[in-house]
């Protein structure tokens, strides 16, 4: 296996910055977030995970789809230019796996053009999780702290530097020029996480849709959007036009099934008028609807952001446990 010293890694990153936009976890007012960096010194090497997942770099919170502007009475149509080669450094394997899940949704027919453009320009260099935190459950749901799905390169921190594992051809190409050294040593194994079974959850869900359990479980929900916005696999958006004088811009922005008006339709009817219906949508989308469409894969990577950040402690792991035990019908 190859290994790169911290100094060489810094040199490689500095070199990349000349050709790519490099995004990495940085400390912003006490929280870790992915931001463009201009020096490796800005990287929060010892970070645990970013509060907002790196999906925001490929599927931005707000993006312009096009603008229409009248010039001398003639409407001019303009699409935004997406041409910046980007390297995302330091994302965790759970978040890379989540990007692979977003790919399934955005890159399948019909292809989502802005997503596809951004995605093609991005190379993902992940870091193995060396100290996953308490509520994490990637290993219970098909992932691993050193998983490679979705990544182009996986790096694992060791005593003498970072073990480097190219995963794709794109990753191999990115490493050209990096001062790699052959080593007989093997990367350290990540510490084990408590594992619970999620097997059979998808199959159980159709029968318990009307269970009184859901209302009881989410009675404390305040219908904020934290669980969905911080979820690396959530991808709902809203589209609206913004007019400014003679110019109109069509925007696409993150939206969330937890918002009270998300499902409201013309005429005012809201098929998901209660928070129970809305939270159930969040869970069912990940554990039933997505697997039904995309080869049985559960759209949850166990990053536990929803667990950690829910203001009222609605814990998806409890729901999985209760489902395994069987819900009242």
């Amino acid at each position, binding site marked *: 296996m190859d290994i790169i010293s911290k100094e060489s890694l810094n040199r490689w990153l500095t070199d990349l910055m000349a050709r790519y936009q490099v995004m990495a976890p940085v400390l*912003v*007012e*006490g*929280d870790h*977030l992915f931001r463009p960096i201009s020096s490796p010194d800005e990287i929060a090497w010892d970070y645990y995970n970013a*509060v*907002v997942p790196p999906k925001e770099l490929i599927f931005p*919170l*707000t993006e312009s789809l096009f603008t229409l502007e009248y010039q001398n009475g003639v409407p001019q149509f303009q699409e935004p230019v997406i041409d910046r080669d980007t390297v995302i450094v330091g994302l965790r394997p759970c978040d890379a796996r989540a990007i692979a899940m977003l790919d399934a949704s955005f890159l399948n027919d019909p292809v989502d053009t802005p997503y596809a453009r951004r995605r093609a320009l991005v190379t993902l260099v992940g870091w193995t999780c060396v100290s996953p*935190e*308490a*509520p994490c459950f990637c290993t219970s749901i098909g992932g691993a702290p050193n998983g490679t799905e979705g990544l182009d390169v996986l790096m694992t921190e060791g005593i003498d530097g970072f073990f480097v594992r190219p995963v794709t051809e794109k990753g191999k190409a990115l490493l050209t020029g990096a001062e790699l050294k052959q080593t007989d040593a093997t990367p350290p194994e990540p510490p084990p996480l408590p594992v619970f079974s999620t097997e059979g959850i998808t199959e159980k869900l159709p029968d318990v849709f009307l269970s009184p359990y859901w209302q*009881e479980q989410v*009675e*404390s929900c*305040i*219908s*904020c*959007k*934290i669980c969905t*916005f*911080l979820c690396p696999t959530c991808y709902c958006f*809203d589209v*609206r036009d*913004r007019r400014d004088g003679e110019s109109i811009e069509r*925007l696409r*922005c*993150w*939206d*969330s099934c937890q*918002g009270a*008006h998300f499902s409201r339709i013309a005429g005012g009817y809201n098929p998901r008028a209660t928070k129970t219906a809305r939270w159930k949508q969040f869970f069912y989308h990940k554990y039933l609807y997505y697997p039904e469409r995309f080869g049985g894969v559960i759209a949850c990577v166990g990053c536990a952001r929803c*667990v*950690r*950040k829910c*203001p*009222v*402690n609605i*814990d998806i*792991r*409890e729901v999985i446990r209760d489902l395994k035990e069987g819900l009242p019908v």
Partner: protein
Amino acid sequence: MTVNITEQIQEKAREILSSGQVELIIGYQRASDGVTARPAFIRKAENVAKLIFDQTCTHNLAKYAIEHRGKSMAIVAKACDTFGINVLIQENQIIREKTYVIGVNCPGVVEVSFGQVGDKLQYRCQICQEHAPAVYDYVAGDPVEEKPLGFDPYIKVKVLEALSQEERIAFWEKHFERCIRCYACRNACPQCYCTECVVEQIDPDWVGIPIQVPEKQIFHVIRAFHLAGRCIGCNECERSCPVGIPLSLMNMKFSQDVEDQFGYKPGRDPEVCAPLATYQPDENLGIGG
């Protein structure tokens, strides 16, 4: 001897549920991390053993009273939470007669996050000078001695006020840059109860959907204005914020202004409405003749 607040709450809850006086107890239970607290909704006397109270009970449960309005319910409320209940009574959002308040003489709550209990009181509790509930049907816990603070409770606001306008704009833009418009601040707030928030209205589309600094600024400033003289300082907005925006600074600034100009603190007296939410025909607005 100090009383056991948890036992007092459980006993009272059992009594009023068994007698049929209330159909629902909104209190606290242990969270899934085993160390912090989360809201609990108890409807049967045999479940009251779930209820707890300790210094991790940070949530302002008055929030839930609104969605259960009309039901006979009991709410476990710390001193500041009772101010929130009073505001809701003033504003006709809940019915006093149907709301049994299990007040708590509050020792203050500590900083909490998932799986973590801090050893420091939350800042709002460090500056708290009213530990006894303002409205209650029963009080749990021993009275907490009110000690002089020894420092200005608005010191953080004054530090910010001392900056130039440009510096203050830069301060807030820096923080709003990371806001994701998740509305956790608004939805955790017992005083934010509009059925349709102005920033989410579609027709007319006042603010729009962009998650960008101007829209975020408008949202936070509108919310602060709407809370002026109504915010009771529970600071659940700031605690709920996933990206740590210091919303308390904005709310404290407005509270200080209302206190200075009207000598008013919200929620202390259920009969007296917030100055900015009241109009009297004979009042001098300083306009016209």
